[in-house]
């Protein structure tokens, strides 16, 4: 049954976890995402599910490792410094090919930084984050509705590919209230014959490990997970295009930056400048081909982020030199103003014409 509520992004994510059949949530408080743990501490017991406040993010990610290994749908969430603490565990989870969902409600760093929103964890999220060769599937919501929807999608993708999935959100989307509709999806059900639930006489023992001590075995294992990532790249690239059909100028932005850039595109259009927006929804796999195709008909590309320039590197790789790729960013917890982006764009266009 469809149901619409007014909720904070973090709460929407928590409610979606319950509806998506999350069996267990393990977490540790950190601003700006503590509402997830608070909401679930209240609601999960009503559904007979497990919720546990761990002694640290290090412990919570390793509880996830155990619970995911036992074949359960399990989730944790945190914000940047806490996600850094989880990286070791995430690497083990990726190595052991366990499905789980990790939400990062990104705040600005480095270090303790600030509790205000940021997008400075793009590299960490999309390039692995912990030690070794691995990737996460990374989903970037830009609304409270997507905070909820991507929990369903994230769990399904995690189960489908036996890979950890990260929702890379930020403090603004986590904290703001919007309308959110539930009841749109039903969770994917997948058998997990590999889970460690106790060995019956009928099968060999199951064990969860990321250890392959022989180099030949380890190489084979990494090849195997990279073939999986190729499949993910083939099947799971998601993005949103806004006014790109006739666009001559392209903005590439995700999450909160994309919302703001959408407004900038509207202002530019009002001024008669044919601007469009490409919003990557999956940051990994990155919509390389789409950006490359769009670049064909663009005069220039501007990447807007709430950091000092991270995704812009992937945009440049995707555009592959076809047109100039510029960058505009605010950081340290500051949020770009749509007009700032418009000004940047106009300056670039003028400069481009002068050239």
């Amino acid at each position, binding site marked *: 049954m469809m149901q619409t509520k007014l909720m904070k992004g973090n709460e929407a994510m928590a409610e979606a976890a319950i509806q998506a059949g999350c069996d*267990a949530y393990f977490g540790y408080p950190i601003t700006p995402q503590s509402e997830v743990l608070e909401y679930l501490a209240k609601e999960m017991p009503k559904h007979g599910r497990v919720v546990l406040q*761990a002694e640290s993010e290090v412990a919570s990610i*390793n509880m996830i490792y155990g619970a995911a290994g036992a074949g359960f749908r*399990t989730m944790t969430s945190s914000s940047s410094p806490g996600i850094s603490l989880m990286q070791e565990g995430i690497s083990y989870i990726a190595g052991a090919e366990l499905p789980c969902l990790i939400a990062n409600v990104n705040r600005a760093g480095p270090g303790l930084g600030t509790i205000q929103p940021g997008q400075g964890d793009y590299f960490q999220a999309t390039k692995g984050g912990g030690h070794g060769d691995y990737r996460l599937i990374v989903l970037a919501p830009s609304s409270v509705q997507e905070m909820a929807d991507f929990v369903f999608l994230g769990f399904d993708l995690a189960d489908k590919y036996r890979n950890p999935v990260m929702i890379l959100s930020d403090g603004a989307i986590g904290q703001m209230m919007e309308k959110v509709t539930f009841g749109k999806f039903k969770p994917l059900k997948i058998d997990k014959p590999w889970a460690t639930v106790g060995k019956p006489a009928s099968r060999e023992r199951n*064990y969860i490990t990321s250890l392959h001590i022989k180099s030949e075995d380890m190489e084979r294992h990494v090849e195997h997970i990279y073939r999986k990532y190729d499949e993910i790249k083939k099947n799971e690239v998601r993005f949103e295009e806004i006014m790109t059909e006739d666009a001559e100028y392209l903005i590439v932005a995700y999450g909160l930056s994309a919302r703001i850039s959408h407004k900038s595109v509207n202002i530019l259009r009002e001024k008669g400048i044919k601007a469009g927006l490409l919003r990557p929804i999956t940051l990994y796999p990155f919509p390389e081909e789409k950006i490359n195709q769009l670049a064909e008909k663009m005069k220039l590309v501007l990447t807007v982020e709430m950091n000092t320039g991270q995704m812009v590197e992937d945009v440049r790789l995707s555009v592959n030199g076809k047109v100039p790729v510029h960058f505009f960013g605010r950081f340290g917890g500051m949020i770009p103003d749509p007009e700032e982006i418009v000004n940047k764009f106009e300056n670039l266009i003028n400069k481009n014409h002068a050239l």
Partner: protein
Amino acid sequence: MRSEEHSLVEVEIITKKDEPADGKADAKNEPGSKTAEEHVFEEKPKCINEEYEVVYHKPDTLLDVSMHYCPGCAHSLLHKLIMEAVDELGIQEKTVGVAPVGCAVFAYDYMNIDMSEAAHGRACATATGIKRLLPDSYVFTYQGDGDLAAIGIAETIHAINRGENIAIFFMNNAVYGMTSGQMAPTSLLGMKTTTSPYGRDVHEYGEPIKVSELISHLPGSFYVTRQAVNSATAVRKAKKAIMNAFRYQKLNKGTCFVEVIGNCPSNWKMTPLEASKYIDDEMVKAFPLGDIKLPKGEDLKLLEEVK
């Protein structure tokens, strides 16, 4: 295929025994006429004959493979005792083990049960994740002193403080074994290791940490005991403690903690016998053996249920 070198050695042995290398026909009945290999093939060991009763064998829960442990190491014994307990209690289908990082990292290669190989020090957190989702299962961690008492002390204390209904088997051999003998938090004062070449100094590193005593003060711990496996008597006592740790899980009354003072001859630079003696002479001074916390009062009645 055997190398040339190998067959040369064989010829040499036979020559030493003053037997012709290829003279099988005539010498059949002579006592020294067969190689050891031929002897084994011709005369089956008597214990395989049906008329003899098998009185001891490896438990089915232990895989029939050779282990990577050094000669005289306590790990192989502790593995066997735990697996015997699982076998005897008939709980293989309901048991999930968590292996550490350290010498026992390959425990799942030997234990024929479902297992999870945890990150260094995080076994208690991983076990928490499993047990919370499978509350009717028997969940245990198997951890060394570096894993449990150094990097994983926070996870250990908090899991026990929450009273997680798991068993923790803690192998304390006072060194980092896998990385070849560095100082552990449980290394004895004056003990020479690769990272304490002049002996552990109390002013620099303090006293060896007594985890069993420490966690016995937490209300979440239900049963805490310290055992060894360096003699037949010790092995029998340790086995009993391990059986208790599994049985008590059913009561859901808290964590069962079995510390085992283990021999590490390789890193102690001793023979296996010297290592066993070192436990009796030195290790037990810092880590006295015996029960540290036993179920009391009302809980004693509960024990009858799981006897």
